[in-house]
């Protein structure tokens, strides 16, 4: 070879086209913001229907997750995601999509070892680190309350 790996890496970096951030960031902003507005709308609707804030919040999450599961099944969520990028990834609907899509995909390997076992193949780390972080916070909070005065 007429080039060192280091030089080659620099060449690769120079030649590889960067993401078109002037397009990706506004799209993520608009579509992500849009999903949040739908959330806000549902939240208000449920409150108008007489629920308290907490119930309405939970029902909103549930509704968004339902919609995401439906759109994933209809093969529309990944199409939207091609344009939205992080706009469909960051909202709770993105979490639901990451649970539903492997379940759908690996159904062909069986209901238990495929669908069931692979369901959290992408979303698993979110729960592992999210729940663990909350436990650590709980322990710290408890120590402060008990010993910190």
């Amino acid at each position, binding site marked *: 070879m007429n080039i060192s790996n280091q030089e080659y890496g620099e060449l690769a970096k120079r030649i590889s086209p*960067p*993401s078109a*951030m002037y397009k*990706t960031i506004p*799209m993520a*902003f*608009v579509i*992500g*913001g*849009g999903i*949040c*507005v*739908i*959330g*806000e709308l549902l*939240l208000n609707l449920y409150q108008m229907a007489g629920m308290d804030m907490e119930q309405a919040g939970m029902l*909103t*999450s*549930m509704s968004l*997750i*339902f919609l995401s*599961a*439906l759109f*994933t*099944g209809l093969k529309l969520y990944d*199409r939207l995601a*091609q344009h939205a*990028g*992080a*706009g469909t*990834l*960051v*909202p*709770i609907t*993105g*979490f*639901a999509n*990451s649970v539903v*899509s492997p*379940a*759908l*995909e690996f*159904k*062909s390997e069986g209901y238990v070892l495929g*669908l069931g076992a692979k*369901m959290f193949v*992408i*979303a698993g780390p*979110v*729960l592992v*680190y*999210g*729940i663990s*972080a*909350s*436990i650590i*916070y*709980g322990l710290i*909070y*408890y120590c402060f309350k008990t010993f910190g005065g």
Partner: protein
Amino acid sequence: MDMFMEYVWAFLVGGLLCAIGQVLIDLTKLTPARILTSYVVAGVVLGAIGVYEPIVNFAGGGATVPLTGFGYLLAKGVREAVDSNGILGAFMGGFTNAAVGISAAIFFGLIAALIFKSGSKINET
């Protein structure tokens, strides 16, 4: 008018959180799973130090719908559970508050997987 501004703020704050995610993807090559994980953990931390609560009060769905809101919910659940159950609460609160979201994802995921078939992206089908 107040009602309208509520939606504007939800849009702006939610959009901003997503745009930050997009910047991370474009500049750092973080994989989507890592972004999701970081957002939830960030939500727990921000919830714990009390920064996220005011954002939720202000932006509503703009703060609760993104995954940082899920993290905030975990932190809030843990704090309430520790208040009423002591140290055991640290191991209860997270799942208590996340119960609806996780259960819904599992159940709707199962139903969707039973009904639909996986299909190819964008160019195909």
